């Protein structure tokens, strides 16, 4: 199932992934008319909420210390997103964590940082991200693609496997999962609220978007999903417990991630077997190795088709460009 705003979101991501189409990135953001976008702020559990709409999901944690965000959505939506956040907190935004580099998750960094300042602020928020996110955002833009403003850059990057801090009465643990959706993916765990925000490592409505150009890979993606399953603890009979906020799509828990992990693991096993037998990409496509999952996760149109997923899996596992 594709969310209403997903087409434009991922189209922008795809364009961003290709230097030749990089010039269209700003156009994609510019095409978003905030008046036509509905944002929904929903409680998750504990101190955590989620803001859903056009763009990636934004995780919002509020409390006496202020506001923390995981991802910031598209830049044009920042005022509207901030208006929703102000319904539950008038505190300053003190922390932002970017789960990865794509602009449907980082596009609102600068604007949200500015809008989140209050008289209680002691400066702009810390913007945390894995160091590869900073490297990519600060790299000279390709082609006519505009430079990402410095105010949007992560200012608190990390390069070790984890980073943690304490905010609003709970531990927040950020885990780097290497070479998954990209090479800079982070999972963000709110330990007392028992909520995990995954970014686009987990997008339950579509096949995983493997951004090979930015260091993503099939095995890294599977490892990341297994890491999510390691962190989450279900309540009675594999339901509830730790809640999972995906990069896009509905609220989930461990059991939903297990189904997704199973799908990708089975797909990997099939591709490995076919590649081992010497089958070409065309032969593999003709064999329809994802047929049983296509009606659940696939698409023949839009930004991330089943064909594109199949090609990405093949390239990732075969090492062929």
């Amino acid at each position: 199932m594709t969310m209403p705003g997903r087409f434009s979101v991922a189209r922008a991501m795809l364009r961003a992934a290709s230097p030749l189409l990089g010039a269209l990135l700003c156009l994609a953001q510019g095409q978003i008319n905030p008046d036509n976008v509905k944002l929904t702020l929903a409680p998750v559990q504990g101190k955590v909420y989620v803001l859903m709409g056009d763009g990636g999901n934004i995780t919002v944690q509020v409390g006496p210390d202020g506001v923390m965000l995981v991802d910031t959505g598209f830049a044009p939506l920042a005022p509207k997103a901030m208006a929703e956040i102000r319904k539950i907190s008038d505190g300053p935004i003190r922390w932002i964590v970017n789960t990865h580099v794509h602009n449907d998750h980082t596009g609102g960094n600068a604007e949200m940082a500015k809008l989140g300042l209050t008289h209680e602020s002691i400066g702009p928020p810390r913007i945390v991200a894995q160091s590869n996110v900073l490297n990519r955002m600060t790299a000279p833009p390709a082609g006519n693609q505009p430079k990402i403003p410095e105010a949007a850059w992560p200012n608190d990057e990390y390069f070790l496997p984890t980073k943690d801090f304490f905010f609003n009465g709970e531990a927040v643990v950020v885990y780097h999962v290497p070479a998954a959706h990209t090479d800079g993916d982070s999972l963000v765990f709110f330990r007392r609220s028992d909520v995990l925000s995954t970014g686009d490592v987990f997008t339950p409505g579509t096949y995983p978007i493997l951004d090979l150009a930015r260091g993503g890979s099939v095995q890294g993606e599977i490892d990341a999903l297994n890491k999510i399953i390691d962190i989450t603890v279900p309540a009675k009979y594999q339901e509830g417990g730790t809640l999972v906020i995906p990069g896009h799509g509905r609220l989930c828990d461990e059991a939903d991630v297990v189904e997704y992990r199973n799908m990708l693991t089975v797909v990997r096993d099939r591709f490995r077997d076919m590649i081992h037998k010497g089958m070409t990409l065309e032969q593999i496509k003709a064999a329809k190795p994802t047929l049983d999952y296509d009606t659940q996760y696939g698409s023949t149109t839009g930004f991330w088709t089943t064909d594109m997923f199949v090609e990405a899996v093949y390239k990732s596992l075969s090492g062929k460009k």
Partner: protein
Amino acid sequence: MHHLPRCRTAHGLLLAALVSLPAFAQVDFTGEWSPLYHEDGPERLPGPELGDYTELPINAAARMAGDTYDADRISVVPEYQCRPHGGDYSMRGLGNLRIWRDIDQNSEKLIAFHTHLLAWDSERTVWMDGRPHPPDYAPHTWQGFSTGVWDGNMLTITTTHFKTNYMRRNGIPRSDKAVLTEHWTRHGDYLTVVTVIEDPVYLTEPLVRSDNWYLDPGQNIGIFGCEYAPEVPRPEGTVPNHLVGQNPFLHEFANWYGLPYEATRGGAETMYPEYRKKIANEYHPPDHCERYCKCTSLFDCNVTSK
């Protein structure tokens, strides 16, 4: 002369009472019920045969999922060990059923029915107060979210927000986009439940099934309990599956029952009486029954007839 107004008043009160008590004007399913297994006994009691997709209007995606499913997944994937039946399957499974209801004491209106099944202590609430289903972004659950309406004396229940689970326990999946419609009818001490599953991901037409229960008060439904425990050494993240075309068990069912293989593959075209004529020359039933010859309860449903 003084009696007439009082009599009218009494009639009026009685009428008002009857009109304002919808909870008691409808069928009450409250009680403890035991399942009857005269329908689909082998599938429901010991479990379905591998490769038996008969009576399921599945599409090619569901068929491939069944063909590549490895039942080791239930034990090797720890998260599957305590996975309960979905709400669309739980009433077909093993175990007794308790039903009770909530009535608002101020209005005497029926708020909800609740069900509790032995298997995995599964509990479900059927909301009768007209509340809407949750939004799309809400979490999904094994039992889903149910609302009910009366259609005469029949209770019609609509359930959405399921988690992905199985339609048949041999790998045929049911997606999280499925919608379940149930029709509950009580005939004295018997309860008939007709279920209709619509699943745009795995079905080409609705799957209609039924099951029956008899009133069996005084049950002591125990606690099911389940704690997952990895018992098979394996690399983390192992998901047992058969590679496409390499499942050695798919022909067993057809061979045991003398059915043409195509007839076991499911699909709407194989579900209706006309299909019998199509396979008449290819159906060669065994000389005598060898599997599940009597299967009406857990105690007489043996693989062999001995």
